[in-house]
């Protein structure tokens, strides 16, 4: 049984139209204007199905605004899905309203590191209080020397010296705040940890500390991760499997090594080719995407989401939505004209 399974997860947000219409719509909103069908909907997560096994870490990559954080918040049960199922340890938790889930027993088993540490930390809490908070609320610990010891230990694990325990968020640097967020989230040793860009505010040295810590927690406690990151070099280090999202849909999924070696979907190829590198020989031929990204607002159910920018597109892509299809190597990709060409990104060592 998978630790986590989502089936056809969907999240739509109603959108205010602009101008005079918007004003009318806004005024109607409180009075059931939505139900009268005047609203348009933004499809943030659109039919996402995937699993995470116990002890597995799964990477989630994709363009900014494609729905990664929304997907993360749905799974952490901070937002309610429009439809679809989320099973955690075999039980459907998708139907429990977010407001009630907060008090439930599963809460402590799913924890999340938020994308923007400034936004997610309480400005009135010192580092000590922020890290102690989940231990007190959900961990059954009480104030005292034991709590202090545990908090200090957690801060040390993420590389925060004791001097920072008495600081408030505004007295911390971006990377220091990010580490408070990580210490908080691992405090309860959850079975599923969702990390939304956890290392992007960190310098490479601290990043290495955090990546080793996550690897260690996985090996020692069997923790599972959903690791949202823009940095494929980092995903490669930590995640056995990776999901590539584009405009609300998973367009490619499979073992990280395989996908780096042989990406099938044209979007994945573009993504891999754009990785900046210090070393000029490591830079690959850029696939610069041209064309406008498609709007996520009421998108056509037949048109491939990548159509407007795809270098491979043909007539068929306009009339038939590509479905995830299995390929050798455990990869699934949603494209009518998947690439046959192998890449050698991320495998220099095996090539030379």
């Amino acid at each position: 049984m998978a630790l986590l399974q989502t089936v056809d997860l969907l999240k739509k947000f109603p959108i205010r139209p602009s101008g005079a219409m918007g004003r009318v719509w806004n005024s109607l909103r409180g009075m059931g204007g939505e139900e009268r069908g005047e609203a348009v909907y933004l499809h943030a997560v659109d039919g996402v199905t995937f699993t995470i096994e116990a002890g597995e870490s799964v990477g989630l990559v994709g363009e900014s605004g494609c729905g990664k954080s929304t997907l993360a918040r749905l799974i952490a049960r901070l937002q309610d899905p429009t439809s679809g199922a989320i099973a955690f340890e075999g039980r459907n938790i998708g139907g429990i309203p977010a407001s009630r889930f907060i008090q439930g027993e599963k809460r402590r088993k799913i924890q999340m590191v938020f994308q923007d540490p400034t936004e997610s930390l309480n400005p009135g809490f010192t580092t000590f209080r922020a890290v102690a908070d989940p231990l007190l609320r959900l961990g059954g610990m009480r104030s005292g020397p034991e709590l202090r010891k545990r908090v200090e230990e957690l801060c040390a694990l993420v590389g925060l010296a004791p001097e920072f325990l008495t600081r408030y968020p505004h007295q911390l640097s971006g990377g220091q705040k990010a580490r408070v967020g990580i210490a908080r989230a691992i405090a309860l040793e959850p079975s599923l940890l969702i990390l939304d860009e956890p290392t992007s505010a960190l310098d490479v040295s601290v990043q290495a500390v955090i990546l080793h810590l996550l690897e260690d927690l996985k090996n020692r406690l069997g923790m599972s991760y959903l690791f949202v990151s823009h940095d494929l070099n980092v995903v490669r280090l930590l995640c056995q499997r990776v999901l590539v999202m584009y405009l609300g849909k998973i367009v490619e999924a499979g073992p990280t090594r395989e996908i780096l070696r042989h990406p099938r979907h044209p979007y994945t190829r573009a993504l891999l080719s754009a990785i900046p590198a210090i070393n000029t020989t490591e830079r690959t031929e850029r696939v610069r995407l041209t064309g406008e990204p498609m709007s996520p607002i009421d998108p056509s159910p037949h048109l491939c989401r990548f159509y407007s920018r795809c270098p491979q597109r043909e007539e068929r892509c306009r009339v038939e939505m590509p479905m995830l299809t299995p390929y050798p190597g455990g990869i699934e990709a949603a494209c009518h004209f998947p690439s046959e060409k192998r890449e050698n990104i991320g495998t220099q060592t095996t090539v030379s």
Partner: protein
Amino acid sequence: MESRNPLLAVDNLSLEFRTRTGVVKALENVSFEIEKGQTVGVVGESGSGKSVMSYAIMGISDPAARITSGRIVFGGISLFEKSGQELQEMRGREISMIFQSPRTALNPIRTIGSQLEDVIYRHSSFRGRQIRGRALDLLNQVHIPDPEKRYHAYPFELSGGMCQRVMIAIAISSNPWLLIADEPVTGLDVTTQAAIMDLIKDAARERNMGTILITHDLGLAAEYCDRIIVMHSGHVVEVADTEHLFMRPRHPYTAKLIGATPNASRDLAELSSIPGNLPDLRAELPACRYSERCEHLKEDCLEPPLPRLETEAGHLVACRYPL
């Protein structure tokens, strides 16, 4: 060297914070210059003072902060000699900043369209309907899909990266002379990242805008910056042209930093952090703040003053025994 007139000169800047448990010496004798049209990267460990330095340039100060030495000269004018009012006018028009945490820098209760319109109204000659046109154009340029429909969105309705991109649109809409971008593309996927960096690059070229690009991504710095400043514990430890810096780093910290960068071929076991922590900035510190972590430490490294050697033209290093 020939006499030049840099766009920005930070000269011997030192800054401290008072806290309940002591004085944090966040910047000490920081000096560097930026030319018109130049893109300068600032890299360095988390907590090394990159954001604090940019706040100082912007004239934004925490009440607990105190500048203890130095000057900041922008376009030939010393910023500390300006009145609060003059400074206020200058920043936003001539200096723009993209903050590290964009969602919190945007006004949460106003739509992104109206926030953008305000800035355009204040800093350009566009009026009436033109303003909306310019705002939509900018949103388009930062790759917000369907800008007409997203115009009335509130910050919480946008993704993290979209807020970042709206901030970028706001920052460049005033056609500044100097753009300070604190982790502007952090967390953005690489394709969007490339598009945004191209946009900043174009603005730099077309309008001769100077850019300070603060980033943890050395790959990004290597690709987009003319010069790089390396910071460690409130000190500038090395400044050099990008190519020189990566080809031949002279400060031991810079070398370690480059060595710790994940790339396409290393695996996790090979990835190591730089041993030792940043020193406690409240304590009495030796001249070289890296000394405790340094493999090449010699006795006199601890003695002031911290040297500032020019190992070759334009390559400065704050180390007595450069590599």
